[in-house]
């Protein structure tokens, strides 16, 4: 492989690649990120390969394996170009049909195309699907076009052009000015202005005449969030290019990508990308023939959630226990090994080449006044179209949930959405028209966080949700400071008591007081934000807490200890199904006679409710007064 020692060679390379590109009649693009592979994309690829081989289509049909396409709900999926036909949830058995019908006869296979669960409308083309239509996919769109293991693919879509521009046409100050003009804010959660951070590191570094570092934070620990994974897996070079540009701007010679070891595919793709970039002279000594030297190391995290916090991430790189430390001093002044350090999130770095290529002016047309550009959210929970969505800042929650996400599953009622992962807050239905940006979310008691978005329907108990998230944070607290280590545990204990029906009136006051103390006294972001789920649910769903405490009832019918399972005598047909299905033999009854649940023996697993045929639907969950009646009846 030849090293590129001048920007013009980069242009030549791109031209040559485009010219040499095999012109295929059709190209099949397989989404094969971690999510795709988990759903079977590797088998699909195998089937496609053998089918193409069998039909001798090597010359005319291209097969491209890319990173995640974002629409997780429909994995494994493929897109067939040039038309852009989207086939969902494929199995290897579908492949012969795909080849025969679509590739050879140009016909669409109706059973494989996407059907909107709400309207029933069918969409053969990827671009028409509502999930994609409302998105502005500045960063994620390229995932359709790039084989992440081939640097050539990235070069062909103008990859490393921003770097060439920066290295040869711009001074470091101009780069920082450009980023500042774009109003880019950190995508890791706190939303600190990126340009300002770079400026601080640059100033600190020149003041100390010291070496400095640059870090890409890819320790994406929020459950149900995988924006960074998708970028690293699907388009690693965009992150690397952003980092090199950042290094040039702040004057760093060494950078780190701190990535979770739970992301083996991302680690593999990034490692590969770094090697390719190095071999091509895009990384390492005298990048693109300039006088700028910069190299990147990969550090794999060992699975601690708190490592995503910048100071503990740096402690982890240094080989120490991932304990955060009190700020100030901020990493911009004293970071990795005590040197000025610029640390940004994966998505932030990926935005950098974009801003340079498009220009800050153009970039900042997207989004709202305080929050520019797009943001990727991972939309999960009780929603029809789960997946990664990239939307302009300022879009409303309603648009994301109903237009992009296709609404709530099974037509149920929307109850709340949790943004920002376990340290975010729950936003209720009345805030659905909230335009999403850093500031509005904070006002609503939540945070942007790294972009997790968990949608909850009416069957969700908010007390239980708060308990669930506190369970996560109290387990993931590093143990250094008291409020976070013991406070989250105590909050979790109180919430557990409430969900078990053991709550007392005074618990709510204590919970709120404790939550506030943990928020203001904790050392790092983990503890400071851990009470958010509690505080927001207390704020928006107070009556639900009261019901748990006063009436010992769970309105959403979730908290086991507050429920009874009951077979309505009027509906039961005596089919014996539930009796057979009960794991603890708590149901008695004979054929064609009404079955009864022995409430003392019942473990409330819900097997009877699942088994009871939908036509009959004789098993019910009851809470509160009705529950009391049923239990009393049993006594009499």
């Amino acid at each position, binding site marked *: 492989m030849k090293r590129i020692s001048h920007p013009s060679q980069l242009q030549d390379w791109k031209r040559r690649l485009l010219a040499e590109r095999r012109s295929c009649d059709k190209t099949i693009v397989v989404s094969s990120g971690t999510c795709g592979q988990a759903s079977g994309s590797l088998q699909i690829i195998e089937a496609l390969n053998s089918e193409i081989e069998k039909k001798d289509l090597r010359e005319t049909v291209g097969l491209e394996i890319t990173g995640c396409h974002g629409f997780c709900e429909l994995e494994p999926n493929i897109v067939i170009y040039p038309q852009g036909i989207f086939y969902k949830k494929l199995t290897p058995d579908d492949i012969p049909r795909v080849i025969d019908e679509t590739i050879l006869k140009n016909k669409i296979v109706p059973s494989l195309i996407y059907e909107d669960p709400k309207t029933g409308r069918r969409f053969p083309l990827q671009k028409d699907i509502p999930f994609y239509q409302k998105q502005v996919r500045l960063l994620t769109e390229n995932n359709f076009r790039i084989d992440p293991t081939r640097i050539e693919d990235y070069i062909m879509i103008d990859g490393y052009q921003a770097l060439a521009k920066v290295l040869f046409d711009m001074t470091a100050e101009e780069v920082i000015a450009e980023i500042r003009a774009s109003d880019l804010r950190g995508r890791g959660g706190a939303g600190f202005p990126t340009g300002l951070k770079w400026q601080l590191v640059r100033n600190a570094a020149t003041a100390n005449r010291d070496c400095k570092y640059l870090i890409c934070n890819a320790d994406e620990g929020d459950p149900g969030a995988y924006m960074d994974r998708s970028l690293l897996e699907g388009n690693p070079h965009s992150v690397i290019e952003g980092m090199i540009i950042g290094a040039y701007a702040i004057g760093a010679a060494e950078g780190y990508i701190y990535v979770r070891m739970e992301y083996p595919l991302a680690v593999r793709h990034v490692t590969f990308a770094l090697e390719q970039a190095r071999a091509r002279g895009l990384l390492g000594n005298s990048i693109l023939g300039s006088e700028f030297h910069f190299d990147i190391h990969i550090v794999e995290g060992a699975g*601690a959630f*708190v490592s995503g916090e910048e100071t503990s991430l740096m402690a982890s790189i240094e080989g120490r*226990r991932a*304990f955060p*430390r*009190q700020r100030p001093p901020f990493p911009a002044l004293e970071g990795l090994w005590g040197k000025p350090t610029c640390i940004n999130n994966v998505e932030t770095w990926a935005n950098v080449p974009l801003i340079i290529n498009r220009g800050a002016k153009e970039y900042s047309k997207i989004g709202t006044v305080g929050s520019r550009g797009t943001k990727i959210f991972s939309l999960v929970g009780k929603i029809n179209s789960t997946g990664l969505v990239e939307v302009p800042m300022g879009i409303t929650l309603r648009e994301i949930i109903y237009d992009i996400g296709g609404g709530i599953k099974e037509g149920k009622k929307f109850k709340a959405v949790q943004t920002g992962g376990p340290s975010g807050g729950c936003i209720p239905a009345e805030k659905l028209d909230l335009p999403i940006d850093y500031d509005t979310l904070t006002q609503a008691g939540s945070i942007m966080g790294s972009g997790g978005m968990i949608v909850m329907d009416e069957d969700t108990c908010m007390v239980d949700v708060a308990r669930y998230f506190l369970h996560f944070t*109290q*387990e*993931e*607290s*590093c*143990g*250094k*400071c*008291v*409020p976070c*280590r*013991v*406070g*989250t*545990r*105590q909050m979790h*204990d109180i919430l557990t008591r409430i969900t078990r029906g053991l709550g007392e009136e005074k618990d709510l006051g*204590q919970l709120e*007081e*404790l939550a506030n*103390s943990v928020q*203001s*006294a*904790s*050392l790092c972001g983990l503890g400071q934000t851990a009470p958010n789920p509690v505080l927001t649910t207390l704020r928006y769903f107070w009556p639900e807490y009261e019901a748990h405490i006063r009436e010992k009832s769970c309105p959403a019918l979730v908290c086991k200890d507050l429920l009874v399972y009951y077979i309505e005598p009027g509906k039961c047909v005596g089919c014996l199904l539930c009796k057979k299905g009960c794991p603890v033999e708590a149901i008695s009854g004979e054929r064609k006679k009404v079955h009864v649940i022995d409430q003392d023996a019942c473990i409330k697993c819900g097997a009877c409710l699942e088994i009871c045929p939908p036509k009959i639907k004789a098993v019910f969950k009851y809470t509160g007064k009705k529950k009391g009646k049923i239990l009393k009846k049993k006594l009499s």
Partner: protein
Amino acid sequence: MRIMINGRQLDVSGEKTILEVARSSGIFIPSLCDHPSLAPFGGCRLCLVEIKGRQGYPPACCTYAEEGQDIVTETPELQAIRRQVLELILSEHPHACLMCAEKKNCDEYKTTIRKVGEVTGCVLCPSNGRCELQDVVEAMKIDRVGFPASYRNFDVRRDDPFFDRNYNLCILCGRCVRVCQEVRGASAISFVFRGSQAVVGTAFDRPLLESGCQLCGACVDVCPTGALAERASRGEALPDEEAETICPLCSIGCGLKASLRGGRIVSFAPTNAEAVNRGQACVKGRFILRDIVYSSKRILKPLVRRNGELHETGWDEALDFVAGKLKGYVGKNLAFVSSTQVSLEDMHVFDRFTRDVLRTDQIVSFRNHSPLTSFWKEIRMNGQPAELNFDLDSISTAKTIVAIGADIVISHPIIWVEVFRALRNGARLVVIDERDSGLERHASFRLRVQTGREFSLLNRISLKLLENNPENPHSQVKGYETWRESLLNEKKAAFARADIDEAEVDSAARLLAERQPTVFLIGPSVVNSAAGSANLRALWNLAQVCGARLIPLAGENNERGAFEVWARSSDRVLSIEEAHFKISRREYKALYLAGPLPALPDAAADFLVIQDCFMSENARQADAVLPAATFAECGGTFVNVEGRIRKFKNIIKPLGEARPDWWIICRLAEKMDARVFGFQNAAEILSDLGRTRPVFEPASHWQQKKDNPVFIFEEKKDAGQFLSWESPELAVRKAEARSSPAASARDLDYYRSLNLVEESKGLRKLRKLREK
């Protein structure tokens, strides 16, 4: 700069945290994780304050004072938060006694049924009454805990010697972990697990002994609660008296604080009083010293041999007996053996006694391999301006430290603490040693060279330095040409034998050239071998080339003092090995042993007197045994490795009939009708010493000023020159002729004739582990 705390204007100089400023101005801010000798941590969150114009509640321990800050330490919000945080701490810590309404009565009149155990209350806790958590609860007037108690039910760890670890009482302030990592450089313990499972522990939950712990006890000293507690003082009541003393064991002479109860020593702990050990000690000073004083081997009454048996007797009779016998040997073949762990006063009296009364020439005291004496003989006696005095700070501020044959982690733990301090400040460590000592894991370069061939490596480094620096500033120095000639001559013959990698030599040389100041710590194995002379000369020459400071490490506490009293200008001093050799050949008619000597053959002399604190093999065959008092029972003066002169007072009365060494000798001299000296107290002896030996002049007009250290007087000499050195081949051949046992750090595990390894099971375990 000026800052304001609670409306009070305060002047601050230097970089200080708000907590430090508040403490020094008498403003109370509760805190549990902060410790003066450790870096800020910010874990307990009790010291939160408000700073006008700044968001949130920054912790005072991690926030540095800045010009114009307006700080408030008490507001209703702060109090509420602190209260909650403390309640959270207490929810995991046994607090029944802390919250008890009968607390006060219980302390005074024991009104409650004292059934509450360590699991829930304080009364059985080893730290009851000296617990920082109790103090904070008291100060913040907490009288209830709003959260249900959630104790952690850990087993108490009792696998290790000397102290227990009861993590049920741990509040995770991290002080023990930090002192182990930041100060002692051992990193034997760490936080393990996460979240509410987090706890302090060792790797794989092994005993401390198997985790690289040296049992220095630093963690025990910083623990704010009873989680880490010395086993020996468990169950002892609170001390009613405290007294300061100096550890008599190794040449550092750590300042120690003894806690006493009813006139009996309960425990020793390091003090911060002088800039010597700065609150640190080692396993021996921290845990074993008490057992030394109260050892079952102590001799408590004078013994005299009658009819072949040793019988207890009074001082008069014993002294009469010894005096009568000794008179017959005056001026004849008689040897007097001294310990180097006795005070200057004792040494001076020994010196005068042997010179003026016994009129013998033989004083025996030094172990063969004292780097101090060898260094003096080889370098200073050759007219070189080698200084012996130094300051421990010169180690901690060095940029390069070379430890050669020095097992300092074991032999001089406090020097290791200083070396580690330097390493944390960016210094580099080079270890030159054949054996593994554990030091090498901190080293930038570890040069493994056969013991006895160190000179070869050192010369190669010197030569490398000369080659790398063409503008040689040394060429005018006396002896340079001869030395350089000899280096070049030997290059092929000798250097080729050394199995050192050329690249390593090159790197080490570059380090020495680039990073200064440089300090060489010289341990016993360098001087002990036959090549000792060649080694020391090679070291000296190398030090001339790279401008390094050479520090020969004295072994036992008053070794430097003994050296100044006798060895410096006299040839009547033998080493223990030499003496033992002569005694075994029955060259002496009488022996007076006031110091340790390896077990003697039967009937080694016609008359044998033992003056010691402890019963030994030799004492069993003595004609008379005179009980000496230990350091704890008599005051005196010690000189440590730095040349620092320090006084100490007795902390208890002499046990039994034991008496200070100088007292015994003075009274014995009187019995022998020698009226040349009749000292009645230590002060008289010291002023006599100051008069007769000018180097001790600073000690005789002593002023007890803590920030004004007193050092041995040392005259400065002119610039040094290069020393020629013997052909190594010759030296090695000589070596084979008089081989002596390998030096080891265990040589220092003695107090006078008491073998601490035999005496203490814990120390035995620790040392055994190392030998594996």
